[in-house]
């Protein structure tokens, strides 16, 4: 029998009936009386001065209620890591897709037509589309005011480089000197898009107190709220954000995007305004994952032991920094991989260009780094004539050793995930035995989570049900169900008696939100603490009622009982009634879980992410068949094993593993935002190809449980890791199948075809 009654159960989520019947409300479904429809005019110039905006024809169109530009918006710079943007471009545009103006009208058709009537006079400026061009000594400055921008940290910045950070451990020069062999390669990862099925949308209105209210499907309620208020130059209490169901996050719904514009339209017209992006706008004006260039140089002994590793990351930020600084920080933080690298140096530079305004996607820099690092490990193995698995096993990181000059590793489980994935995939039986043009490849992942802050309250209601008050939104991952399971376990009641309240920014406790795989660990710990707090309140009442010492009270299985005297007990409902009506309520517990420090902290010349709460490991094995005449790769089988600490909801964990790895397969073989002269050439689901049900292989999704004492009931996290290893696992499998290594993703048929040709395979 399981030691837990709510934890470890695949409890069906509370939202699924509403979603299965079409009753769940998303931002795109919202409607308010008297609502107007918004449309944004985006820049079609990659770099240009705005000389004049003539909105007169647009304003004159019958049915148009407002046309706004930067002149109508606060001139308050905002941004996540670096405050480098405005709501609308003011004196210049720095990329295609940047908002320049917006319209509110009585119908979408009129709003669309009006946006087309706005005349913007641009004076083009020199454009920079490559990292080389943007970093030339005499390159024009895309952000002349860079030195004065406020940032979360005092980033090193110059020219078009908005962040230059370095992490060092040991002495790489000595490490390379000790090496018998040195391997070096440069890897490229393409810009990709979250491609959530629901386009970005929001609805804003002025309430009766003249406060701005915005409904939006956000991953980070608190962050969206504070950024919205900041951008509007308002106190946060003057703004209310109400979260609704979101049709997919994946890093695309982290903060604000449309909300400021929608709010300004609502305030100007004094009517509710709804803004919904078209699918083309979704691909071209929201923030896809930035393209990365990663050079890795590794020194090894002949027996495979790593002596030194040097990593150099270049990130194309596009016109604004958005989340790219954070992804770069995260990338170098995990750049040594789950390996013992005594001498390591990692550098990241985030560079402004006039490419689209890149942001982040699931993985947050670690997906890009994992492709590079795990392809590199395989290349080293091949160069040494070693099996790629043996090379990894030889170099696995150890409990207690520091990661890139920050805190020591804990809860290391990579050997275990490797063993499980290799066994389940039949790696050792299949390696070398698969037949012509078939191959098998392995990749590990290393990720960190547990940072920033979460707080929660737990309230016991008069009917002995329990309500959780949390600021974390459930973006479809099942977060709220896991919170319910945690509270139910702590209080010894059934999950059905626990619900999560529908809150908003007025009422929700602060939570950093659904980002970076942190909700189970951070938000879950906050809920656990809040539930324990209220359990303590209940225990005091029970002790008094049952006439025993507080330490003798056990609250479990729906009862509060005296240990050793089970007949001296109260049913949970009775206990609640006494607490509320006799001794006096309320029964309200609160809990708060803070990381030991900020998201990143200065470490030497750089910023490492940390200290973090815990460390995540995993291993993927991909089996592929390559049609060497066309370059098409078919994934035959895929195995994934993830270190999750404790699977609080196994079905939820499996759902994240399967869903994440399929996104990873998409990024490995098909997905790429094709940018030509700053313009995205494939802004549709027809040409930005995400996997269909005919493109996914048979999947074995496994998890390894070794409870982490710092996580709620031992849980660590799972949201992002599954998207990280597929690309290198597949690239390594393609190498195994063909002898050809492709150093960039996606490995499209054409890309592989030319690589095979160049190597004389075809």
């Amino acid at each position, binding site marked *: 029998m399981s030691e837990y009654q709510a934890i470890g159960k695949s409890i069906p989520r509370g939202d699924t009936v509403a979603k299965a019947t079409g009753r769940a409300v998303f931002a795109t479904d919202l409607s308010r009386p008297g609502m107007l429809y918004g449309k944004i005019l985006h820049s079609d110039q990659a770099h240009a001065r705005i000389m004049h905006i003539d909105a007169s024809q647009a304003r004159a169109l019958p049915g148009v209620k407002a046309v706004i530009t930067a002149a109508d918006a606060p001139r308050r710079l905002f941004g996540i890591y670096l405050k480098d943007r405005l709501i609308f471009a003011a004196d210049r545009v720095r990329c295609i*897709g940047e908002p320049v103006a917006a319209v509110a009208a009585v119908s979408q058709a009129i709003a669309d037509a009006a*946006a087309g009537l706005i005349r913007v006079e641009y004076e083009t400026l020199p454009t920079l589309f490559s990292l080389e061009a943007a970093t030339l000594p005499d390159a024009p400055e895309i952000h002349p005011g860079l030195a004065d921008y406020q940032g979360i940290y005092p980033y090193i910045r110059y020219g078009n480089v908005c962040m230059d950070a370095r992490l060092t451990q040991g002495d790489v020069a000595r490490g390379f000197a000790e090496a018998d062999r040195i391997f070096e390669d440069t890897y490229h990862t393409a810009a990709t898009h979250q491609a959530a099925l629901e386009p970005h949308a929001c609805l804003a209105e002025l309430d009766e107190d003249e406060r701005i209210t915005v409904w939006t499907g956000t991953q980070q309620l608190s962050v969206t709220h504070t950024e919205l208020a900041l951008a509007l130059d308002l106190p946060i209490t003057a703004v209310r954000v109400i979260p609704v169901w979101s049709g997919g996050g994946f890093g695309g719904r982290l903060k604000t995007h449309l909300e400021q514009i929608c709010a300004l339209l609502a305030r100007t017209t004094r009517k509710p305004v709804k803004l919904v992006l078209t*699918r083309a706008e979704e691909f071209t004006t929201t923030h896809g994952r930035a393209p990365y260039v990663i050079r890795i140089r590794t020194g090894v002994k002949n027996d495979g032991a790593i002596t030194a590793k040097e990593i150099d990351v270049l990130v194309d930020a596009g016109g604004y920094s958005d989340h790219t600084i954070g992804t770069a920080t995260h990338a170098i933080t995990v750049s040594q991989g789950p390996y013992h690298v005594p001498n390591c140096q990692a550098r990241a530079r985030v560079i402004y260009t006039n490419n689209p305004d890149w942001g982040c996607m699931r993985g947050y820099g670690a997906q890009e780094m994992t492709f590079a690092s795990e392809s590199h490990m395989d290349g080293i193995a091949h160069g040494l004539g070693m099996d790629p698995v043996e090379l990894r096993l030889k170099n696995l990181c150890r409990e207690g050793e520091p990661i890139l000059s920050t805190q020591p590793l804990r809860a290391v489980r990579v050997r275990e995930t490797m063993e499980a994935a290799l066994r389940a995939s039949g790696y050792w039986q299949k390696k070398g035995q698969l037949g012509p043009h078939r191959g098998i490849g392995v990749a590990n992942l290393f990720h960190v989570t547990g940072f920033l802050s979460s707080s929660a309250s737990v309230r016991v209601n008069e009917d002995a049900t329990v309500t959780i008050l949390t600021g974390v939104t459930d973006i479809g991952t099942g977060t709220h169900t896991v919170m319910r399971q945690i509270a139910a376990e702590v209080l010894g009641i059934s999950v059905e008696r626990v619900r999560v309240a529908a809150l908003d920014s007025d009422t929700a406790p602060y939570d950093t939100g659904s980002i970076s795989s942190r909700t189970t660990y951070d938000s879950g710990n906050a809920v656990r603490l809040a539930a324990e707090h209220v359990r303590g309140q209940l225990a005091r009442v029970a002790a008094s009622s049952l006439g025993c010492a507080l330490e003798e009270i056990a609250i479990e299985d729906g009862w509060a009982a005296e240990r050793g005297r089970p007949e001296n007990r109260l049913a949970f409902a009775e206990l609640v009634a006494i607490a509320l009506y006799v001794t006096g309520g309320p029964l309200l517990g609160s809990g708060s879980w803070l990381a030991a420090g900020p998201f990143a902290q200065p470490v030497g010349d750089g910023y490492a992410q940390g200290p973090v709460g815990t460390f995540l490991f995993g291993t993927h094995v991909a089996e592929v068949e390559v049609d060497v*005449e066309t370059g098409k790769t078919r994934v035959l089988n895929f195995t994934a094993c993830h270190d999750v600490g404790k699977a609080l909801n196994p079905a939820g964990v499996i759902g994240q593993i399967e869903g994440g790895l399929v996104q990873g397969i998409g990024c490995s073989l098909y997905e790429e935002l094709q940018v030509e002269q700053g313009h995205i050439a494939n802004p549709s689901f027809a040409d930005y190809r995400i996997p269909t049900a005919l493109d996914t292989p048979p999947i074995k999704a496994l998890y390894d449980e070794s409870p982490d004492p710092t996580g709620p009931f031992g849980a660590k996290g799972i949201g992002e890791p599954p998207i990280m290893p597929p690309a290198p696992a597949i690239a390594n499998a393609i190498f195994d199948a063909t002898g050809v290594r492709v150093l960039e993703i996606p490995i499209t048929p054409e890309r592989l075809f030319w690589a095979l040709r160049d190597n004389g395979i075809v």
Partner: protein
Amino acid sequence: MATRSQPIGSRAKMAAIQSYTRVGSIQQALAQMQRAAPFGNARLLAGGTDLLPQVHSGRAAGAALVDVSDVPELQGISADGEQLRIGAATKLADIVRSPFLTGGLRVLADSAAQVGSVQVRHLATLGGNLCNASPSADTAPALLVLDAVVAIVSQAGERRLPLDRFFVGPGRTALQPGELLAAILLPGRWREGAATYLKHAPRAAMDLAVVGVAAAFSQKPNGSPEVRLALGAVAPTPIRARRAEAQLLSAPAFDEQAIREAAACAAAEASPISDVRASAAYRRAMAALLVERALRLVLRGESIEQGRSRAS
């Protein structure tokens, strides 16, 4: 430099459709087209899967739509003696499961099955697929190797045209004002032959063909061989690779060398472009490869796997 910024991907004009009329017969359709003739904006609507996105992105602004999707004379597949007659408004989903398309004629069903998705195939029609005249239309190469003829109807009566003269350019057909495509006619004798359509695209579903190749082979009553080759997505229109066909037929035997040479010849007849989906060079290489594979299949019944293991 003054530029009027165009909103991305939005409806550029209000009232993108000027009028919509549903008709119940070919005569009614022709009458509606005549009524709209002075304005030149009549567009026939069948499935709408190509037309509606075009209308809403402003590429067919102000259209007077004539909905022919329910016209009985334009529906269905029937045998007309030795010939098969497919109504132009027959849905692709119905073509996929038609019991008339057996033997070599199955290639039409197979190609229709690769268009879009189940949902698209329940709207899209064969006539619509042809009239949209995309160079990469999946049904076109299959119909070309089956010697399809199109029946075009106007107030003046009916005229027939071999399909390869129907495509005039990307998105352009030989239809004149006042004409509509009524039916596609297939000679029944291809039932006795072998035919295949191979589509090269990154995903297993939903993609436009990067290259599409169809091949057909049969023997005439006197024993002499007939070969057809058609290529999609590698020229301004779907094309018959006639020089490659002739080359193959002049070869002493249908051996590997003859197949390779015919494939090279077909690739040379192609004039692919580079676009967001593929480069011209890759398309040309894939055209040759797919012709080889298609020929091995129809000439020798050899599958792609068999061909590969023989080659390696």
